[in-house]
């Protein structure tokens, strides 16, 4: 260490770290905006049911969700109050599910393909008919791991 002092002689000028916090705050806001953006893109109203025995889904990258519910205020006039299926960012019919399953499988690598959990986010007032149809389509498309999204309920 003493070798440096001989050569330099002078002190190093202090690094100005005042802007560092600005950069980090920018990161902070970026992540906050990104993490809330996905929640707002739902076209259907979903109020998921309560359950006491819920399990957390471990890997978020291995979850694909299928949303079923009434269209929200912007779409209810055009589409009516019947429950609709939303895949990614658009409304879909039951027959399009196998296509969706394929494209979701393509996005993952070979090892992960069989590990995908299909999270069914369904409004509690939806009738089982639609859900059954979706489940049948999933079975046909070899997508067996299903999660019925529900909120944790405090035990009575």
């Amino acid at each position, binding site marked *: 260490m003493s070798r440096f002092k001989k050569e330099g002689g002078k002190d190093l000028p202090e690094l100005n770290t005042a802007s*560092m916090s600005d950069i980090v705050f920018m*990161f902070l806001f970026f992540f906050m905006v990104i993490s809330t953006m996905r929640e707002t893109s739902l076209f259907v109203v979903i109020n998921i049911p309560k*359950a006491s*025995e819920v399990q957390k*889904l471990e890997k978020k990258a291995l979850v694909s969700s299928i949303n079923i519910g009434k269209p929200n205020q912007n779409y209810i006039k055009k589409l009516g109050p019947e429950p609709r299926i939303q895949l990614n960012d658009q409304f879909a019919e039951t027959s399009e599910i196998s296509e969706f399953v394929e494209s979701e499988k393509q996005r993952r690598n070979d090892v992960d393909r069989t590990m995908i959990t299909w999270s069914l986010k369904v409004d509690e007032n939806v009738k089982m008919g639609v859900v059954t149809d979706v489940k*049948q389509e999933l079975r046909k498309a070899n997508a067996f791991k299903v*999660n019925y999204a529900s909120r*944790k309920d405090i035990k009575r």
Partner: protein
Amino acid sequence: MAKRTPALNTSSMADISFLLLTFFLLTSSINTDQGIQRKLPPPLRGDEKVPPVNRRNVLQILVNMNDQLLVNGEVVTDVHQLKNITKDFIANPNEEIHLSDKKPLYIDELNMNAMVSKGVVSLQNDRSTSYSIYVAVQDQLTLAFNELRNEYAQQNFGKSFEDLSETQKKGVQKIYPMSISEAEPSNYGGKK
């Protein structure tokens, strides 16, 4: 100006904001999906035959379009009764003739023989059944099996199921397998 104000030391500011950043990153990832997990059966092929199951080994749960429950021919008014019905049916502590039969099975993981119930829960719902009652039923069934596993773990290992080792968990899961069969969709009493 008589005096210059000394520069504020802002080097700790970065630490503070990093702390905030990590805090928000962590809290936003906690908001993961949660729910009841199930495995769907592979699609039926025409030439496949369903293995015959003895009537006493089936706990038949029917849910109609008005969200009313019929369990083995008896009306159940409250979903929450379903847990105890299922537990009795699977555990069958007094070897009753109308509840599920048991068979001895060798459990590799625990290196022992155990009596495993042959019982199967058969769940059938109408197209007009509401999703909330369906989830409630699934929840009660999960609760029943979880409690059975937990009780077994408490009795034999002296700790809860969650605290067991992975192999022990697998063994206990084999003793109380979650055998829930969902009937192929039907449509009685109501239009689509």
